[in-house]
């Protein structure tokens, strides 16, 4: 575990072990706040910041904290970072903070963060843990963003609405109206739509993985007919 390469960490976080699509962790914010791009992006960024910060600190103290108090200590660290993020959002993006509401403090309970602290940061050095936090957070945030985009297009027929909540006045007119003003498909905005879109994304990822696997299999040397397997382990009885 200790000698895992940075490349592998990146691949794990963004694709192979993606928090939202493969581990299926953090589904609560995934379902609740991905109704629009701005909400998804806001929560994705907040989660990423907390995940990275907690991973770094957990990795720093990993040799000092005994196993008995490990989990409470991790939760305290995560709660600290969550509170910091919450206060920062309150200070700089107050309207978005109001929209996301309870889901910002609830980042504490996001299983992805505690999961990474326990499974990765408590066993690896600081730089690897920081990268893992960044990549896991990015992977999670990207999935939130994709779901948010699809749901905003399907649900309200717009794209990038209200982006000024996150980017300030310059994003005032980023809104793209894709369909007519009276367009609305409520089920995509409500949680069932999030379930449907998330399920489709998981299916899509499996299809892509399957394609890659098949291409790799085709590239491998073909098995020669009549070749024999050689037993290398155990004893023949």
């Amino acid at each position, binding site marked *: 575990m200790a000698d895992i390469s940075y490349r592998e960490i990146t691949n794990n976080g963004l694709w192979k072990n993606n928090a939202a699509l493969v581990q299926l962790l953090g589904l609560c914010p995934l379902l609740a706040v991905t109704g629009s791009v701005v909400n998804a992006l806001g929560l994705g960024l907040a989660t990423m910041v907390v995940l990275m910060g907690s991973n770094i600190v957990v990795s720093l103290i990993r040799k000092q904290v005994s196993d008995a108090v490990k989990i409470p200590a991790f939760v305290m660290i995560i709660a600290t970072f969550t509170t910091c993020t919450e206060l920062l959002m309150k200070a700089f993006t107050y309207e978005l903070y109001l929209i996301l509401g309870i889901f910002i403090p609830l980042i504490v309970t996001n299983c992805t963060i505690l999961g990474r602290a326990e499974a990765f940061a408590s066993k690896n050095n600081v730089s690897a843990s920081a990268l893992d936090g960044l990549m896991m957070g990015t992977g999670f945030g990207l999935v939130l963003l994709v779901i948010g985009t699809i749901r905003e297009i399907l649900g309200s027929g717009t794209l990038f609405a209200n982006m000024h909540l996150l980017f300030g006045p310059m994003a005032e007119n980023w809104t793209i109206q894709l369909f007519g003003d009276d367009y*609305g*498909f*409520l*089920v*995509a905005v*409500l949680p*069932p739509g999030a379930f*449907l879109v998330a399920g489709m994304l998981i299916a899509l990822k499996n299809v892509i993985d399957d394609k890659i696997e098949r291409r790799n299999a085709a590239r491998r040397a073909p098995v020669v007919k009549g070749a024999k397997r050689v037993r290398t382990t155990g004893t023949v009885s």
Partner: protein
Amino acid sequence: MALLKLTSPHAHTAQSTADVMKLVLLATIPGLVALTVFFGWGTIINVFIAAAVALICEASVMGLRKRPVMFYLKDNSALVTAVLLGLALPPLAPWWIPVVGTFFAIVIAKHLYGGLGYNPFNPAMVGYVVLLISFPVQMTAWPAPAPLYPAEIDVPGLWQSLQIVLPFFNEALTGTVSGSIDAYTAATPLDTFKHNTGLLVEQLYKKDPLFNQGSWAGIGWEWANFAFLAGGCFLLYRRVFTWHAPVAMLVSLTLCAALFYDGGSSSSHGSPLLHLLSGGTMLGAFFIVTDPVTSATSNKGRLIYGALIGILIFIIRSWGSYPDAVAFAVLLMNFAAPLIDNYTLPRTYGHKKSRKATEKKDEGP
């Protein structure tokens, strides 16, 4: 809706899926006629749009899944789903309502779960609920029953109904914006009861033309429900399903309504007759609750399943925020059907007592 797993001995031959579905389609005809007589051509248009979309969706999904397309189209199950959905939708709804609903029913509720026989939820009801949640305005706009139209407005004929359902088509053809459905809509009996605040039930029945021109539970609605009841009796006679689930549902709904009728005060939730003969009660009881795939399997299980649906319908109708509740109640109980099956496994012949399906140990003789 297929997979009627019949084991020997039989006194009669097992029916094929296609034959059963044909009988079900046949049995919906009285209801379709009654709805058309009282609410205009809208229902027939709904059924046709839904059927066309269902066949297209079924064929394309089967093609994508690399299954024999014609074999599955011929079992008529997609057609039954479409017809049931078309009957449940409000007449004169815009064309995209049946299109979206049927797409959800066939593609998402049926085939994403594995196709016919694997779907845990009734496809037609999933389609209906998706529409009801997404488009509450269009889904609650029921036209008034034909006899109650004011003198200056004619009941829309077939051509006029098509113009309302397909506005873009009409605009392209004649260059005029077609009439809105708003001119024809009126509250349904269940709506009326939901929003009744000041009147005793007796006063309401005397004052509201919906009731004082009808005989039991609202003009139009009562006959549509009787027609579905007749279709259901035909299916019972042909042994397409057993009596357990529908009878249990109707009895429990009646009991609940009788219990909370409170003698007809202004806060009454309506008489048992109102609950039996308005809304989607009979359509639900005989065509939705009896779906063999999504309901409980044993007779005892079906009694429990049906009874709980009846109770849920009454609860949601009386204290929920939607006027009718058949679709929600059925979907909620679809969730519970596997659990009911687990506890109501019939005793196997030769074994001492029945056991739970999840129990591994066999207590044989």
